[in-house]
């Protein structure tokens, strides 16, 4: 079942094409779109099961053997990320059916959504640097169109900023690709890993590595490149905000993890200081930015910046414990932040305002939504019973063990700040005495979607041990790039024996 790797890419592509050709039939589009989302999720589950039982799955595209052709590689990390993002995407898709106005759904919403997901799954699964660029562009252009979808002034402005910085990042990505190809003569990740391993003189490679980190840092909202994020994530339609904050910024973190664990292994010490310093600043600016917000979606967007700082910190420390806690953090943040955006969207829909000062007392009127938001707050803030706590605790512990006492202290202080601004938001929206204004009706589908993610966080907390065991296995695979390389080249030799 080698072709299984292509399913998470082909299913969204097919769904997008079919929904384009369904014309203006709303019911048909919604049904096909939900079936496509469900099928993507199912294929991701199947893929992860296959990878778990049979090891890394490699598929050579169009029978051009690597290093020339394009390959898709599913190891535990990439198939786990695909599963996580397809789960969040399915929930966000159900939410969209209730949220996006009918005219939008009749037009381009569903095709764009599935193209966005195709780009994300492709970026996780590809084993070729240039192909990664192509999938990045697919996911970026779909996300530009989705952020600007309703066509309000502020959405167009946010998209202009978002697209401008990411187009510059794309040009830098091409520079790095050109530099890498010019130096090493290959773009296949496994092949590069072998060639760089045998290299005597590093030449310009550390610089190229840093260029890649900068490019992926733009996607991951690393410090000097995060300015687009609060605008884009807060202006987008709510389900898209959930995808952007829950899944898309993790693509940047995943790419940094992937290239530093497979390709540029010998040069990790060269950039470690940069990643750590930028991650620390990212944590600080995210937390400070969130403290100053009165708009609930902007607050959540700034919080995403701060939490990405933690994820990058773990990537920078790079010890086994740090990586396991980073992966746990990624799972926690993907579920919890997506859920917070979805519940914030429900509140905005019901009250008709985004200013937290105009809300209040909603806890009595919408107890389930208040409960879900509280679960998200506790998960991101790291309150003990939930597994967000263990992610933060282990991360800080690994920082201390690795000798970064200052960073550990900073992370601990900012964890308290995070808890503070999120609880302040919850208190302002749901708890304090409200003006008791009449609420608009919110579709059941939207409320249900928020609750599903809250449920997943609780399930993750109950099954924390299996989850940590799985993430440790992922980390063990990351630590041995040889596994990845061997899997790819075993496939190549088998392919050439067939021809």
């Amino acid at each position, binding site marked *: 079942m080698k072709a299984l790797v292509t399913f998470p890419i082909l299913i969204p592509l097919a769904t997008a094409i079919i929904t384009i050709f369904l014309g203006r039939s709303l019911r048909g589009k919604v049904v096909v779109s939900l079936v496509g989302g469900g099928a993507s999720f199912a294929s991701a589950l199947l893929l992860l099961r296959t990878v778990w039982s049979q090891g890394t799955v490699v598929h050579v595209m169009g029978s051009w053997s690597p290093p*020339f052709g394009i390959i898709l590689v599913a190891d535990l990390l990439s198939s786990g990320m695909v599963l996580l993002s397809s789960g969040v995407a399915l929930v966000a898709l159900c939410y969209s059916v209730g949220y996006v106005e009918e005219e939008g759904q009749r037009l381009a919403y569903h095709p764009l959504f599935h193209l966005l997901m195709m780009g994300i799954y492709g970026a996780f699964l590809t084993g070729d640097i240039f192909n990664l660029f192509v999938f990045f562009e697919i996911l970026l252009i779909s996300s530009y169109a989705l952020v600007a979808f309703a066509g309000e002034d502020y959405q*167009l*402005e*946010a998209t202009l900023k978002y697209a*401008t910085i990411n187009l510059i990042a794309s040009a830098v990505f091409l520079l790095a690709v050109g530099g890498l190809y010019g130096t090493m003569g290959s773009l296949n990740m496994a092949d590069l890993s072998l060639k760089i391993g045998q290299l005597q003189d590093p030449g310009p490679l550390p610089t190229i590595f840093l260029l890649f980190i900068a490019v992926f840092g733009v996607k991951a909202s690393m410090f000097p490149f995060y300015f687009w994020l609060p605008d884009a994530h807060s202006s987008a339609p709510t389900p898209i905000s959930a995808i952007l904050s829950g899944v898309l910024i993790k693509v940047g973190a995943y790419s940094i993890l992937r290239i530093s664990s497979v390709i540029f292994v010998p040069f990790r010490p060269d950039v470690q200081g940069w990643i750590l310093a930028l991650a620390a600043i990212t944590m600080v600016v995210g937390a400070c930015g969130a403290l100053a917000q009165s708009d609930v979606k902007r607050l959540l967007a700034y919080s995403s910046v701060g939490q990405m700082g933690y994820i990058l910190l773990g990537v920078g420390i790079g010890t086994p414990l740090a990586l396991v806690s980073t992966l746990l953090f990624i799972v926690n943040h993907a579920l919890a932040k997506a859920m917070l955006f979805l519940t914030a969207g429900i509140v905005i829909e019901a009250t008709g305002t985004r200013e937290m000062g105009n809300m209040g007392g909603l806890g009595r009127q919408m107890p389930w939504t208040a409960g879900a938001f509280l679960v998200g707050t506790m998960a991101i803030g790291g309150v003990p019973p939930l597994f967000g706590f263990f992610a933060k605790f282990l991360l800080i512990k690994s920082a201390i063990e690795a000798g970064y006492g200052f960073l550990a202290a900073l992370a601990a202080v900012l964890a308290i700040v995070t808890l503070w601004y999120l609880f302040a938001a919850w208190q302002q929206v749901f708890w304090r005495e409200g003006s008791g204004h009449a609420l608009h009706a919110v579709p059941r589908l939207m409320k249900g979607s928020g609750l599903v993610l809250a449920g997943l966080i609780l399930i993750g907390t109950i099954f924390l041990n299996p989850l940590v065991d799985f993430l440790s296995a992922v980390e063990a695979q990351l630590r041995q790039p040889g596994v990845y390389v061997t899997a790819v080249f075993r496939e190549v030799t088998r392919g050439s024996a067939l021809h």
Partner: protein
Amino acid sequence: MTTLLAVTIGVLFGTGAFLVLRRNALKVIIGLSLISHGANLLLVTSGGFAGNRPPIIGPGGGVYVDPLPQALVLTAIVISFGMTAFMVTLLYRLYRRTGTVDMDQIRGLKG
């Protein structure tokens, strides 16, 4: 040849960066497309650019340049063309709604 290309790439990046820093959003878009041209040109040269040699092996063998960067750059050109078209459309819609392309006057968001 390499020097000429290096200078060209530098000039493209320099003018592109200058234009991206303008207030007029249309100039920003032109600057972005100049920057991506510079990046494309660099990608072509990464395969060892050699003037008149073809990127395919002729009937009698002979010298040829690495065809892979040329395939890559073709993809990159198409992508940057699509992106530019999207940006121009986006800006046109913004202009229709706000009546200006001056980024200092389009300030609905706090940044």
